């Protein structure tokens, strides 16, 4: 069996008949059954349903009705609702929740013919940067099992890194695709807010949440995005298809979906925001990356994003506020965990919610409740929204000068399990390079650009709204010139 890495190579093998969807599905299911116990990357594995989907895909190949992604196995972060399959969101609250509908993203990937292997582990309700807040236990980083995979899409990142699937969906609220991608040495694409439908994606912070792609290459990220993205009438915040930048993006995605990804060798002017180059462990790797890109003809410019330092505070106020009310629907009445023998209504609420939610979720609910309370609303929530505008304006100003930005993505490589769990503020500060992009709603891609002590390091390329093509093209060029994205953890060959 070939060591299938990328969607594009698998697609070619399926098309040529070198393998079948069923064979591939069995191959990945086999790896999952052998290796998942070490990683805890999957919460649910859908063996039967996956094989049934694979058989359908093989039939499509025989009837010449297959598209580029038909028959390719993949996994969904367990935040996307999947009809008839558990959707836990990493929480005891939804331990037994089976949605009666599928998320728009799931439907789209189903209709593209992709095979769903299972649902991946995650921080509870996507709140976390280490995957340790999952009710189903932490995910282990395949590079070093005593390290965290990052979060919240840690299960998806670890599964792709350990080749328990060739690609997975993730969601990114403050870095939840990009940071675990960096920690696990894979490629993670967070699209522009509104690019991918949020319908059926369990909400954490509605004005920040965005689904995206976790793959081994930038090319694959484009392929997966082309099948996930697009206007959804069920999502009021879905990007307006009449906007010019959205139309350009739609045209590019349609082309990728139809013909596959073809990178363009354009040269970019790349901004290096000073505020991001302070004291990170990955500085040297980023300098090497710069040298490679400079040699390829790209131009670098130092730029300023002056409000960067306030981003983490701003983010935690906004995300906390939105989360605190998004999670009010978990009341033990219509679905989800309900306490035993409630004495009265208040007892039903209090115990169901206290038993169903973990410590980090409660902490964020309390923070958000505080920020929205009478007397604090203006000082926190409104203030945060104003800074949010300042941060977004910083980016807009810089993008008048440069095409994209290159930054580190984390202060360092994957940290140890339990290293930061006792210090929420230190944990939150892990997100300082990812949350500004989230606040501004911009697209960014995380790609491997080096290693330190046997652990991968990531770089972040940020683009203007709906310029996914630009950041993917630049990432793809780098991946043509280097092989960091092909490095794998040792036991991938197991």
């Amino acid at each position, binding site marked *: 069996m070939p060591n299938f890495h990328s969607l594009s190579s698998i697609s070619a093998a399926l098309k040529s008949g070198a393998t079948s969807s069923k064979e591939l599905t069995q191959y990945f299911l086999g790896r999952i059954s052998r290796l998942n116990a070490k990683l805890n990357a999957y919460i649910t594995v859908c063996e039967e349903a996956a094989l049934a989907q694979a058989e359908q895909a093989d039939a499509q190949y025989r009837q010449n009705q297959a598209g580029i992604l038909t028959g390719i196995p993949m996994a969904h972060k367990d935040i996307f609702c999947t009809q008839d399959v558990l959707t836990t969101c990493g929480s005891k609250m939804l331990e037994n929740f089976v949605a009666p509908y599928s998320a728009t993203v799931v439907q789209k990937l189903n209709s593209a013919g992709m095979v769903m292997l299972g649902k991946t582990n995650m921080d509870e309700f996507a709140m976390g940067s280490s995957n340790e807040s999952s009710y189903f236990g932490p995910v282990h980083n395949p590079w070093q099992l005593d390290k965290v995979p990052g979060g919240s899409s840690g299960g998806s990142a670890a599964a792709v890194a350990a080749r328990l699937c060739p690609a997975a969906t993730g969601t990114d609220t403050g870095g939840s695709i990009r940071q675990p991608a960096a920690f696990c040495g894979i490629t993670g694409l967070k699209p522009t807010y509104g690019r991918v439908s949020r319908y059926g994606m369990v909400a954490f912070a509605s*004005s920040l949440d965005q689904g995206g792609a976790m793959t081994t290459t930038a090319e694959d990220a484009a392929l997966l995005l082309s099948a996930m993205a697009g206007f959804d009438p069920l999502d009021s915040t879905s990007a307006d298809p009449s906007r010019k930048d959205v139309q350009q993006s739609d045209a590019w995605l349609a082309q990728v979906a139809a013909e596959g990804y073809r990178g363009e060798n354009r040269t970019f002017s790349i901004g290096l925001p000073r505020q991001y180059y302070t004291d990170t462990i990955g500085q040297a790797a980023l300098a090497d990356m710069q040298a490679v890109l400079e040699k390829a003809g790209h131009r670098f410019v130092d730029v300023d994003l002056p409000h960067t330092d306030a981003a983490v505070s701003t983010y935690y106020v906004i995300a906390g506020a939105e989360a605190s*009310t998004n999670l009010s629907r978990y009341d033990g009445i219509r679905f989800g965990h309900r306490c035993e023998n409630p004495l009265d209504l208040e007892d039903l609420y209090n115990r169901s919610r206290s038993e169903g939610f973990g410590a980090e979720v409660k902490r964020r609910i309390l923070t958000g409740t505080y920020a929205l*309370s009478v007397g604090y609303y203006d000082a926190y929530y409104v203030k945060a929204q104003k800074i949010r505008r300042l941060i977004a304006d910083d980016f807009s100003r810089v993008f008048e000068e440069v095409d994209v930005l290159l930054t580190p993505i984390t202060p360092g490589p994957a940290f140890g399990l339990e290293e930061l769990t006792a210090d929420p503020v230190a944990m939150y500060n892990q997100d300082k390079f990812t949350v500004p992009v989230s606040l501004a709603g911009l697209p960014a891609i995380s790609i491997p650009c080096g290693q330190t002590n046997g652990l991968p390091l990531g770089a972040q390329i940020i683009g203007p709204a709906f310029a996914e093509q630009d950041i993917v093209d630049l990432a793809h060029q780098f991946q043509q010139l280097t092989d960091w994205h092909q490095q794998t953890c040792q036991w991938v060959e197991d």
Partner: protein
Amino acid sequence: MQWEPVIGLELHVQLATSSKIFSGASTAFGAAPNEQACAVDLGLPGVLPVLNENAVKMAVKFGLAIGAQINLHSIFDRKNYFYPDLPKGYQISQFETPIVGAGSITLEQEDGNNLRIGITRAHLEEDAGKSIHDLFPNQTGIDLNRTGTPLLEIVSEPDLRSAKQAADYFRQMHNLVRYLKICDGNLAQGSMRCDANVSVRPSGSTTLGERTEIKNINSFRFVERAIRFEIDRHIDILEGGGTVERETRQYDPDRDETRVMRGKEMSEDYRYFPDPDLLPLQISQTFVDAVAAELPELPEARRHRYEEALGLTAYDARWLSNDPDVAEFFEAVLNICNNAKQSANWIMGALSGYLNKADLGIDQSPVSPEQVGTLIARLDDGTLSSKTAKTLFDHLCSQGGEVDEAIEVLGLKQLNDTGELSGIIDQILADNPDQVAQLKAGKEKVLGFFVGQVMKQTQGKANPKQVNELIREKI
């Protein structure tokens, strides 16, 4: 001391859309439990709201009808509180930036001293579900069919000064929203509910007393009684040297009293903030203009027209124009008979009397405007006398049927045949020689006696005018 009540009302008007404000589920009343609560209404994980265009149109329509400022830019907020019939744990509403800003209506008073009542604002929000407390032992059943039904909350200024005025205001708004066809006005089904804010102050004072809020009153009568009770309660407290507590109360119609629901210490911190699942609502002036073009003729304009163009009295014009169903009935009748005065008389007299007795609304009237209109036309063309017309009307109410057919079947046609009538008169004159002598002597009153006799003989079918003429001829 003389006390002055100060009252403001919040009306919750269910908008008559087909689908919910944020989902594609039906708003029809009376479905089996939870059969109209879709994933969005249930607040399942991952679902999202999308705003119903028609709800926006209806809100704008209302705003235009009260001469309010229409806010082209408005925001939907989350109002956070836990209740079992509020599935998401928050209600989507409009807090700081409602779609309809300040406007006013003129409250018609029977004494003619009309009052201007300010409308502070009107905003869009979603209705909650229903809690059923008496269906299961020790449990409350939750039916979420009503969840997400669009509501327009209309907030008045504290411009009302008596329980009667408050009830009149409620009634007038009830007429207005039905004129606009933005609400079916069915109070029994909760299509319009009222919260009343009540306070009292010494007459002449310009500061406001502490107020209480009476929640969820859904009839005109109860609004008046609940407020009257509450005013008296405030006055009793104040005259006894006490202070009124700010609290929320509910009205119990069986005992005709208000009771405390929750006090000030229980007041919720709703943590309003803009709903991040919805974008700012921006409507164009073109949108507003298109809604304006659809506005129907409103009660005031209609009343003027009835007075000026149709020559009705001020009283009749108001009577017929207040309620859109009555006005519509009247215009349909008028359209057939083209006799405004008679149309008014029949609707306000015989029909209204019958409906009152049978406790029916005019929309449930057993006789149609076509029947009433034709009846008046037959009266005007001399086919019916006023007496036979009344007989026919009663028949139509109880039996139904087509007017001309009923006239035939019941033999109600006036006797316009002079030959037959002449014979009857001759006979009566011969039978009453004394009265003939009196009439000849100039005792005009006796003429009435003869006409009465003829009408009796003909069972009212004779034309009195014709009878008069024939008697004079003969004597």
